[in-house]
């Protein structure tokens, strides 16, 4: 995720026509109508928290993908493409596809067969209450803070792009999200995420189409970018042999092992915000197909994110600059590139649709955070630690109230950030601390039957402490980055990757060592939780071309081909 402060500038980028206002208003009416319609179908815990576990593979897959397709990501990574070139695509390909396929084929059977409500819920079944409590409390706390940070960022972007008042954006979006999630629960959040997916494509796909037309095709765009920047801006891998031979200042080991093997695995397989969408699938085959569908579509996202950034670099008649320079000079920053390209090609109506897509991205991201927070709070904190004997109706009522309270905490966080902007970067950093070690804990739990309960807890805790420690070390002494990333040439973008790699390794080593010193669970206790001890039901009655393994193979072939083509 991009630093949120980097989204800010002081100029208004676009002016809306009345028809644009009608399109935005229609979006709000539609999402509220969906919420009211779904109210009557969210009366039980399974309905409210798990969307009745009846989503098809396509709905779960689109929702899974949309949970990571927020407007901040779109604008931030388009800005990164302008700044670093096609290298930013790594976050969409190697930084997502292998992890999504791993989730589908290796991890999903255990999540699904265990019938857990959440990732912390799986940790309870596999490692016991301490690991669940650590994971659930940290996740709930961070999720609701992130929701507030995103809310403020959204309001700020709307102020910059459209000139809207901060308070108006925060309250209108919050109240809308609170209404439709409180009414319809996870099902309502999922419906709106799928709607957001279509709005984003409908609103953004014209930019690459018209941009390539204006540039004279991909070949001419490469020439333009090479003239304005350098040839390395158009290569994915060929400049990654050394830290200073590419615009990002990163080495291929960081991309492959830090991003591809740890960060993305941690995010896509253990972040409950995205995994929750898959747990709502109607059966195991749908749960396995959903991340594969998500992976197939994820490979297309650079079309509407990276390509507009490159087109901006090649076509805009002025240069974009970094945030500090933009603030000092009044120029546009890198992160303005997507709205600038939107305003370049989109007239009345289309501009409204593009802005609606951004609003939808922000709001569904907020709804995703709030619905995940609600589930973890109710099932992994409130029920086991405070009130374990209540009725299902009571927990649903708790879920609805928690939704409202979660939104109010998010609003409070947004106002806190408004008065102390540095809090945003701290919250984002805090969120990243837990991802890599959590992946180590969950994957060892699923694949290694010898891993014990105390080992799961201590591995998770010490892995997280490693991440926090490294972050603090570099914060206090920026030159320490050379030790974290093992190179004096490493730049800031490399820190996250190596920090994640080390914290993952510490988590794994601690888990293994403590496991060897403590008593394991019996095979019977691990039935349904660990590979080798769990009978995975075979998919019956479907042709070879309907099986998840076949489609995962297709995705792998396309993934490899794309990396070779843009080498």
């Amino acid at each position: 995720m991009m630093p949120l402060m980097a989204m800010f500038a002081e100029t208004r980028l676009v002016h809306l026509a009345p028809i644009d206002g009608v399109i935005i208003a229609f979006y709000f009416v539609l999402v509220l109508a969906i919420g009211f319609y779904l109210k009557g179908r969210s009366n039980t815990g399974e309905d409210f928290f798990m969307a009745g576990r009846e989503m098809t593979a396509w709905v779960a897959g689109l929702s899974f993908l949309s949970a990571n397709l927020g407007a901040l990501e779109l604008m931030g990574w388009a800005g990164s493409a302008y700044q670093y070139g096609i290298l930013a695509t790594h976050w969409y390909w190697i930084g997502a596809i292998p992890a999504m396929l791993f989730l589908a084929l290796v991890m999903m059977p255990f999540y699904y067969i265990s019938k857990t409500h959440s990732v912390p819920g799986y940790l309870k079944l596999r490692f016991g209450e301490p690991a669940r409590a650590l994971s659930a409390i940290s996740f709930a706390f961070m999720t609701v803070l992130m929701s507030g940070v995103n809310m403020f960022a959204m309001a700020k972007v709307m102020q910059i792009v459209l000139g809207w008042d901060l308070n108006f954006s925060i309250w209108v979006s919050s109240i809308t999200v609170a209404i439709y999630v409180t009414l319809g629960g996870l099902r309502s959040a999922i419906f709106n995420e799928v709607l957001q997916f279509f709005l984003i494509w409908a609103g953004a796909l014209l930019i690459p189409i018209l941009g390539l037309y204006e540039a004279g095709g991909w070949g001419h765009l490469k020439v333009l970018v090479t003239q304005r920047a350098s040839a390395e801006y158009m290569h994915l891998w060929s400049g990654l042999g050394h830290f200073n031979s590419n615009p990002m200042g990163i080495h291929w080991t960081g991309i492959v092992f830090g991003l591809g093997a740890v960060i993305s695995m941690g995010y896509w397989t253990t972040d409950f915000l995205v995994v929750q969408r898959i747990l709502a699938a109607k059966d195991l085959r749908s749960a396995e197909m959903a991340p594969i569908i998500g992976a197939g579509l994820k490979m297309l996202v650079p079309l509407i994110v990276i390509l507009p950034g490159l087109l901006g670099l090649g076509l805009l008649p002025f240069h974009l600059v970094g945030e500090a320079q933009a603030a000092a000079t009044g120029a546009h920053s890198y992160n303005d590139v997507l709205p600038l390209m939107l305003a370049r090609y989109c007239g009345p109506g289309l501009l409204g649709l593009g802005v609606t897509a951004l609003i939808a991205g922000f709001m569904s991201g907020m709804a995703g955070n709030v619905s995940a927070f609600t589930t973890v709070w109710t099932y992994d904190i409130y029920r086991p630690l405070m009130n374990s004997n209540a009725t299902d109706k009571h927990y649903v009522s708790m879920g609805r109230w928690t939704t409202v309270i979660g939104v109010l905490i998010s609003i409070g966080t947004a106002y806190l950030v408004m008065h102390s902007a540095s809090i945003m970067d701290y919250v984002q950093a805090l969120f990243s601390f837990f991802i890599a070690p959590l992946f180590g804990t969950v994957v060892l739990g699923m694949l290694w039957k010898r891993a014990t309960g105390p080992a799961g807890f201590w591995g998770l805790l010490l892995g997280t402490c490693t991440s926090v420690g490294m972050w603090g070390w570099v914060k206090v002494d920026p030159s320490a980055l050379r030790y974290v990333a093992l190179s004096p040439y490493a730049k800031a973008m490399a820190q996250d990757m190596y920090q994640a790699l080390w914290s993952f390794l510490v988590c794994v080593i601690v888990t293994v060592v403590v496991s060897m010193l403590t008593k394991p669970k019996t095979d019977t206790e691990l039935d349904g939780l660990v590979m080798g001890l769990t009978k995975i039901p075979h998919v019956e009655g479907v042709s070879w071309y309907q099986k998840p393994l076949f489609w995962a193979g297709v995705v792998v072939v396309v993934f490899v081909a794309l990396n070779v083509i843009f080498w």
Partner: protein
Amino acid sequence: MISIWFFIGLSLLVNGALICGAGVYQMINPPAIPNIVLFSLHANVWWGGLLFLVGLFYCVYFRPKHA
């Protein structure tokens, strides 16, 4: 239960109609100085029309049916 795809279709149908309509209006009453690049392609007319047709298909195919 009304399908999610019906809601998607409704969104595309209404947005497509509004965008296409705005584009046609601009074709009839073009601004003296176009404020967008490639104005002559009238992207909002054909893109809005495409969204309208896709939305119409979704609305018809996934329309609510009584049991």
